[in-house]
């Protein structure tokens, strides 16, 4: 007989170098070109999160009725053949026929656009006081003169507001994921480990939660947030509401994993050497599921961001004066806005991009971690 292993597979080599699981994981991941590109996109978005105030050039809360609904403004790169980025001053007029407000560029007035200009004051990374911004204007405050992506009905610059909205929405996504991961890990692990009545109860609870359509459930819960609550409290509550359904998915998947690992010999060995259930669960079993948790987390974040956006869009999640992608989009709820002030839809573009990128990234991670699955 030829030597071979029990299952008929070839024997693993003893001496020749073989790629480690980590190296194989990286190699498989790098083969997903879309996932790699998405990883870069996601990283860029989190740069925006970190430096939102630096990227914004106008105070996102400074309303100015004189600049309501300014359309996106063209930026001119050359002045008399010389490279000198500038915008023209704005003249507010009423259309004599429709009586609608219109903005006309005042060709005579040139407002230079410069890098690292001084603007409104903020705290960099929430710590360091600063007033420099990536872009800014000279001679006139940016709040009244620079509107790269237009202004909303209160005359606030959309570009700056989007930068801050990305920060809010992406952070709320992370926070909600953290909460659901914690709950998912906890319930999934004990459910899979103990089985029996505990498992039965947790699984029924998950089944019930999942069989209620999420949007109406969220709507009901979000509508229950008292209008008197402050931004922070609302922020926190919205996070919890979104996480409420999110944890069930991870809990289910973990339970399955833990259950199959539960019967492995190393668990019996750990039990025999006197390890308590807590230690077995969280020291021996849980680390085996790390790749799974990472992939699921990456796929859960965009779902959370989408949820916040959807709730905000309906006017049920975060509410003004908070600035989130959902809040920005809620102005696009009326057909009139979509038709006449189409730039109000611009926040939908970064929303879609970040959600798609996160999904591709999570997908690539999952494939790399679990090529069979």
């Amino acid at each position, binding site marked *: 007989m030829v030597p071979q292993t029990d299952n008929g597979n070839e024997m693993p080599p003893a001496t020749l170098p073989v790629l480690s699981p980590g190296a194989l994981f990286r190699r498989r991941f790098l083969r997903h070109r879309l996932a790699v590109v998405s990883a870069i996109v996601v990283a860029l978005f989190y740069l925006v999160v970190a430096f939102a105030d630096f990227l914004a050039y106008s105070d996102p809360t400074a309303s100015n009725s004189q600049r309501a609904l300014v359309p996106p403004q063209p930026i001119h790169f050359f002045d008399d053949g010389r490279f000198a980025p500038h915008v023209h001053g704005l003249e507010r007029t009423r259309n004599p026929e429709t009586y609608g407000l219109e903005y006309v560029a005042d060709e005579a007035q040139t407002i230079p656009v410069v890098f690292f200009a001084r603007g409104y004051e903020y705290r960099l990374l929430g710590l360091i006081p600063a007033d420099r911004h990536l872009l800014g204007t000279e001679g006139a405050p940016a709040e009244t003169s620079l509107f790269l992506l237009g202004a909303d009905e209160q005359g606030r610059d959309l570009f700056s507001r989007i930068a801050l909205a990305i920060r809010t929405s992406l952070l709320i996504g992370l926070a909600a994921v953290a909460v659901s991961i914690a709950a998912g890990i906890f319930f999934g692990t004990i459910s899979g480990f103990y089985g029996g009545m505990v498992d039965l109860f947790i699984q029924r609870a998950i089944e019930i939660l999942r069989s209620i359509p999420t*949007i*109406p*459930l969220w709507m009901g819960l979000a509508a229950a947030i008292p209008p008197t609550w402050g931004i922070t409290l609302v922020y926190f509550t919205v996070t919890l509401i979104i996480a409420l359904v999110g944890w069930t998915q991870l809990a289910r998947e973990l339970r399955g994993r833990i259950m199959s690992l539960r019967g492995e010999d190393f668990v019996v060995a750990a039990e025999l050497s006197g390890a308590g259930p807590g230690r077995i669960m969280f020291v021996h079993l849980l680390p085996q599921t790390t790749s799974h948790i990472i992939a699921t987390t990456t796929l859960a974040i965009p779902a959370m961001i989408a949820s916040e956006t959807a709730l905000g869009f309906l006017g049920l999640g975060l509410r003004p004066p908070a600035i989130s992608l959902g809040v920005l989009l809620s102005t696009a709820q009326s057909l009139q806005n979509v038709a006449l002030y189409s730039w109000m839809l611009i926040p939908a573009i970064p929303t879609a991009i970040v*959600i798609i990128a996160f999904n591709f990234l999570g997908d690539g991670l999952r494939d790399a971690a679990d090529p069979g699955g």
Partner: protein
Amino acid sequence: MRAGKSRSLGNFILYRTSISVVTIFAASVISFIIIQLPPGDFVSSYVAQLSQTGAIGSTESIEQLRRDYGLDQPMVVRYLRWAAGAIRGDFGMSLQWNREVSGLIGEYMGLTLMLAVLGLLLAWGLALPIGLYNAMYRGSMGDYAFSAFGMIGIAVPNFLLALFALFIGFRYFNADLGAIHSPRYVDAPWSVGRFFDALWHMLVPALILALAIMSRLVRVLRANLLDEMSRPYVVTARAKGMRELTLVLKYPLRLALNPFVSTIGLTLPTLISGSIIVSMVLNIPTLGPLLLQALQGQDMFLASAILLILSTLAVVGTLLSDLLLSWIDPRIRLES
């Protein structure tokens, strides 16, 4: 609960049905509690509304209103009253509309179901051929394109898609996607003509709704098919000299369909959620916008009723698909 190996179909139906009943009960409690969460109640917001318009009710009549609606009772009593009514199909009065909730919901139910069912049919009808194509020509440009497109379909939330569609429809086709009835049918009573007219106008909203679910189904089917296609019995069939397409249709597809059927149940809550938000964006008169209004106006009987009915729809749909599956594939009864 672990099923005994000898469980018959009858026992299985009983078991699944009882679970559904428990789920619906839980959903009813949740719907009721959620609606009671906000501080104050409808009467206070009603009074606030009245005082704005100048018609201030006396304290006595406010108390009377509270008693009429049973708002002075403890929560459990109120729930039991409400649940007892709900079982009989009596969901109380909508305070905003000053009408019976059941009648109001009945009016909106038709379009809600139409949108959801049409979305489900589209998702299924499109997922089957695309999933089959992707699995058979895996790695081809078509597979790649469909898969990438599908990822986007899964990723982009319904309401964003609806919003984009609304914008494009308005900007380039000068069409209002939310207009479900042609002008001549707007105020007409339901008729065959009005039905098909609405169905036609529902196509785009239903497609938006179907896209995410379809993409998910395509992935499931593709993965299942690929799984089955690497099985030895497929190689055996190939070794017999079968044509590739015939082979795939006869063997792997048959086996891949079972897990595919089981996903209907899972997609129903998603489908209903989706139909709610899509119709809110496009302003299609379904239960979605009605729910939003009810929530905003603290119209608690209407809101609870809609929440309960949507959950019940999802639960009953899931139950039906589970029963269907257990009938198709006896192994399910033993596994679940």
